[in-house]
């Protein structure tokens, strides 16, 4: 069974918590796509005024002129969603999530007695409440999509369970156009008078597949409760974060540069210890009047060195314009990966001790593949007729 947790106001909740408490509502978050600026999420007050996701920023401003407009920070939302998923690992290691205006998290609960599913769903609801302030909706079904639909259609802070074989009752009235399908498929459905999933599911499978192709067949299978999507195993994203809190607000740039240099050196030590390099670097500065300024940069080549980190931080700090004194500085290194092989590594391999291959590989791979067993093979000198006694497989761990 798969459980889906839907948090409708995830983005708004995050942005609201980042704002000073004295800021007035309502709030809307917009995203920039080329030259277009569209609404990604709106708070309930703005929604009541007619603002909807996907609407242009100009139109939203006309409908709700008093709203505070904030630019979307997709990486930040992804990070917070990853953190949330990492907290749910005790429930299952197969977790996926998707962030739009809201957040949907799927967990594969595997095979358990039916009574246990509801108990786990209730526990999950309580757990989600502790992790996020907004309302949470939970759906429980055999398939991934059905679980999501169940979660999205249930009331706030409740659990909706779709028993195996009862998917048709939930899905029957759903319009075919609501699913992400091709334009040609939508046109064909319109010509054949197919409006809901019940219309489609009532037709023979082979006929649907012949006339409407794979998309039709997939929706037909979904209606019958057959959802073959399996959840991927969730790997905790590797990142390093460091914060420096000033005793008094600082305006002097030299002091800030010195502090950033020290932070870069400490981060460099941590990266060397874990054998990783970062591809994404973010600098957050909070002023004494609680305004948060964030700048981030994605690097073409992953970096690990203290000097390179310091240069990147100085580049980011030059982009931030602050009027007040700085209360705290925070640096986040994201997208940590094994560093790109350097020329020195090449020489190490050619002329160094090649017997360390298994250890070196484990050092680089263990951190990112915690769920995969890496093994060292040792064959014993005495040959036995019992095959298991001839060799030993030892799990390798990073030093």
């Amino acid at each position, binding site marked *: 069974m798969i459980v889906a947790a839907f948090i409708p106001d995830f983005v708004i909740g995050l942005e609201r918590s980042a704002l000073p408490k004295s800021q007035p509502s309502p709030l809307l978050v917009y995203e920039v796509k080329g030259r277009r600026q569209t609404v990604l999420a709106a708070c309930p007050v703005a929604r009541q005024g007619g603002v909807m996701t996907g609407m242009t920023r100009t139109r939203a401003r006309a409908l709700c002129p008093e709203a505070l407009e904030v630019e979307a920070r997709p990486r930040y939302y992804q990070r917070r969603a990853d953190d949330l998923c990492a907290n749910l690992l005790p429930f299952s290691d197969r977790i996926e999530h998707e962030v739009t205006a809201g957040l949907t998290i799927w967990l594969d609960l595997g095979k358990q007695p039916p009574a246990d599913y509801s108990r786990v769903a209730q526990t999950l609801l309580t757990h989600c409440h502790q992790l996020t302030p907004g309302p949470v909706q939970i759906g429980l079904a055999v398939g991934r999509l059905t679980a999501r639909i169940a979660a999205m259609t249930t009331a706030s802070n409740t659990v909706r369970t779709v028993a195996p074989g009862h998917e048709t009752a939930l899905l029957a009235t759903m319009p075919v156009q609501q699913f992400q399908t091709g334009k040609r498929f939508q046109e064909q459905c319109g010509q054949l008078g197919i409006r809901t999933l019940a219309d489609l599911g009532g037709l023979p499978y082979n006929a649907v597949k012949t006339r409407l192709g794979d998309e039709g067949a997939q929706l037909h299978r979904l209606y019958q409760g057959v959802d073959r999507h399996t959840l991927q195993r969730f790997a905790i994203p590797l990142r390093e974060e460091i914060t420096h809190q000033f005793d008094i607000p600082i305006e002097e740039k030299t002091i800030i540069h010195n502090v950033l240099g020290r932070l870069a050196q400490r981060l460099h030590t941590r990266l060397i210890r874990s054998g990783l390099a970062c591809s994404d670097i973010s600098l957050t500065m909070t002023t004494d009047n609680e305004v948060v300024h964030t700048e981030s940069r994605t690097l073409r080549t992953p970096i690990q060195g203290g000097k390179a980190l310091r240069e990147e931080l100085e580049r980011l700090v030059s982009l931030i314009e602050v009027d007040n004194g700085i209360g705290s500085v925070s640096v986040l290194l994201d997208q940590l990966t094994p560093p790109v092989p350097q020329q020195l590594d090449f*020489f190490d391999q050619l002329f160094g001790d*090649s017997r360390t291959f*298994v250890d*070196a*590989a484990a050092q680089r791979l263990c951190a*990112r*593949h915690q769920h*995969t067993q890496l093994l060292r093979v040792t*064959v014993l000198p005495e040959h036995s007729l019992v095959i298991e006694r001839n*060799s030993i497989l030892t799990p390798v761990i990073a030093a």
Partner: protein
Amino acid sequence: MDSLKAARFEAVRQAIHHKWGQQALQSVRAYQAGTQQRTILTGFPDLDAALGGGIPHQSITLLEGNATSGMTSLAYHLIASAHANGLVCVYLDLSQTFDADYAIRCYSIQEDQLLLVYADDLADALALARDVLLLPYRGLIVLDAALAEPVPLFPALQSGFSRLKLPLRQSRWTLLALLPQAAQWVTLPAALHLGLQRSDWQYQNSLISGLWSTVHVRKNQRQPDTQTTVISIVFPDDLA
């Protein structure tokens, strides 16, 4: 370049060669020629001749066959050949059937140059393979999915191999995939695709001592003509 500069250059070159070996400093042309023509020998002269010198480096090779077709033996031969040429090996074992004792004792595979990985599913194995490409070694990655079901395996392999193809070419690794017999593998983005089928058993004193295996070259980007070669796989004495 005047004679004094030439003499100094020659002295520095000789000092580097003396300290670090001949491979440490070489002309760009010699290095490119060395890297472009690198192959891994299969250990069967007829098959090597048919393939143009073995399986190509920095690309994907598929071995397809059922149980007792000789596919695993050929893979072990390739790992041993890779080790003999100073390459390391990462064996991604999806079905957890790697016989360490047999491989190391009978095929001279070096245990300190072999990392065995038990992956639960293909997605994990391919993700790990992508990270292996970043390791600073020349080596061979063996993806053993010989016992997997072909139908669910195919879409994952199609997308996974497409993503691996370019990084593989830019790395110093070679990927060898062992797959069950199925028709759809032809469309996978591989440089070489071999199908193995057992022709007959070999007997010695009325005991099975090996097998004849027919190798069909289904796809070879370097030599477009498809060929068929029969190889003799003799089980090592230690197997008995």
